[in-house]
């Protein structure tokens, strides 16, 4: 589904990603872990097409398409979704209205007619139950005055509605208490299907107790320096990142 080859990327002229290679297949959950400043957020920004990140070398293929040629909105329409670490507020626009616009733009891109209003609301109701989010929240201005937990839950709800092929959870666990974490993880697990994939980007183990990865990568200084199965999570939690740094020899 996703093939990243020798990806180099820079911000304001400074190279952050220094040759990433990664392949993700349908049905897989990959965790990308690493210390602060390793390039985790840069990787998610490059994948989603944030313009101020400049790709200097390498390629990304997504379902046979050259991802780097597509603007951010087309990548989303192709089925890439990111749960933001810091979701933005849009005053005066309710989550429901926001999603209606998003869903219909995606449908238009795929050559489908707009969702009939009744069907859309029915679908929203189903997803609401699935994620366990309050109706009231969805009719308020997007993320305005939401608690940290509510914002993240809202991200997962949007993911449920947009049904991405590839979901990137960018530090979704940051700022969540254990109950919120469980609810969010639960939502993600319910949305897992054989034909979609998930990238969980995190610093800590705790989210991975609930969303169990198939593959774990350690990102350090712009490169993936270790790849293993889920047992790596426990090892990192126990020993921290220093031993990796030593192993890499820096």
């Amino acid at each position, binding site marked *: 589904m996703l093939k990243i080859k020798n990806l180099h990327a820079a911000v304001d002229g400074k190279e952050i990603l220094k040759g990433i290679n990664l392949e993700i297949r349908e049905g897989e959950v990959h965790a990308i872990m690493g210390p602060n400043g390793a390039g985790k957020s840069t990787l998610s920004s490059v994948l989603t097409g944030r313009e101020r990140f400049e790709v200097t070398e390498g390629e990304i293929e997504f379902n046979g398409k050259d991802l780097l040629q597509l603007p951010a909105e087309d990548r989303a329409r192709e089925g890439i979704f990111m749960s933001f670490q810091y979701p933005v507020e*849009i*005053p005066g626009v309710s989550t429901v209205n926001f999603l209606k616009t998003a869903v219909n*733009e995606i449908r238009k891109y795929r050559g489908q007619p707009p969702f009939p209003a009744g069907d859309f609301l029915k679908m929203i109701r189903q997803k609401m139950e699935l994620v366990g989010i309050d109706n009231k929240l969805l009719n308020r201005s997007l993320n305005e005055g939401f608690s940290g937990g509510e914002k993240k839950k809202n991200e997962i709800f949007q993911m449920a509605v947009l049904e991405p092929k590839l979901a990137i959870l960018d530090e979704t666990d940051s700022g969540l208490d254990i109950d919120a974490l469980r609810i969010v993880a639960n939502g993600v697990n319910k949305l897992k299907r054989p034909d979609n994939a998930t990238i969980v980007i995190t610093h800590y183990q705790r989210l991975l107790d609930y969303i169990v990865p198939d593959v774990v990568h350690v990102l350090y200084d712009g490169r993936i320096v270790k790849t293993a199965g889920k047992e790596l999570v426990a090892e990192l939690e126990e020993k921290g990142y220093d031993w990796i740094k030593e192993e890499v020899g820096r």
Partner: protein
Amino acid sequence: MAKEQENIIQEVTGSEYKYGFVTNVETETIGKGLNEEVIRMISAKKEEPEWLLEFRLNAYRHWLTMKMPRWAKLDIPEIDYQDIVYYAAPKQKESKQWEDVDPELKATFDKLGIPLSEQMALSGIAVDAVMDSVSVKTTFKDTLAERGVIFCSFSEAVRNHPDLVRKYLGSVVPYRDNYFAALNSAVFSDGSFVYIPKGVRCPMELSTYFRINARNTGQFERTLIVAEDDAYVSYLEGCTAPQRDENQLHAAIVEIVVEKNAEVKYSTVQNWYPGDKEGKGGIYNFVTKRGICRGENAKLIWAQVETGSAITWKYPSTILKGDGSVSEFYSVAVTNNYQQADTGTKMIHIGNNTRSRIVSKGISAGYSSNSYRGKVKVVKTCRNARNYSQCDSLLLGDKCGAHTFPYLEIENSTAQVEHEATTSKIGEDQIFYCNQRGISTEDAVGLIIKGYAGDVLNKMPMEFAVEAQKLLQISLEGSVG
């Protein structure tokens, strides 16, 4: 990053003015220039009574003693008042039958989307269409007359209802009020007159559509609305002008009288030609709008969406005289390219227990300057007045300016006055968030602006809310940030 924002801004605010065409119709004009002779000529053309000519001449003589106001945050070039034509009328037969209206004029208003033929007017909105100095056609006059509602051009009102006009003309905005009010009072040509008798709820939306067509012409219309006790009316004005390289002057007066328990809602969709991208041409919009809540519990609501004009100088105001009277002001003002706006409202609390609410939303893009100037005054004898003001500014890009000038003059300690102001930018973060959900940058800006201005757009009459929203998006097309 700045570069990128700049590009996005270009993209979203670059669209063309849709109403810039000129109608090819034979126009009767008088020569350029302003003097007593010209005023007598205008008055004679309209076959006005002596008292009205006197009113005009007094206004003119007073105007000569005045200076153009310079206190606004506007850069107004010197205006040569002798280089303006003060009267221009599309030539047409006296008869106001639909069949007799010049086909060119019909076509013009068709093109503007204004239903002038009653058969076509499915929307059920009565329209008075004013081109240059005269009213072309007023629809549904007879239907309205059955309820005792008078809705006609100002000239017609002078002819058919002189006592009413004489009673109210200048009663809310005296000609001495300000420079442009004096000028208008001297040379005003046409406009609309609305009279809602006691206890009548006007059965349809009333609307006046102003169009400047002729070259070198100023438009000086006057609107007078009177709602007697327990009456209700919702009124909307719209305006456009052709795209021309020179600036044209528009100096109007609106006077509204609201009696006991009556309610008037006055909405504006102002879309005068704003000039081109380099700031060439466009309308100078210097307007005095004021209403008085004369009786107890009278209510006056202003709702406006302003996207046009090169320069706007306008402060729709309410005098809250009747005890318990209420006024609300909702405004979205957009400036783009080199447009300048200094606009806001005044709420003058005189009666006890009067309430006012101000919600002003400015949106600036390009190199424009957008100022909110508002005054809340509570006089010494007024008890328990309440005011809430909210003035928000939204900036697109980093070359434009937004300013807020609130003036509070509270002379009675029982008053409760609240003022809130915010300034925000459409952030790259917001746009990217929308992009990441599959929403294009242009639609993202539309969505964000709709959310930002929603409180005001909701106050526009239903039929116009959608149009107003579209207008906002078009005005900002090519300018996102």
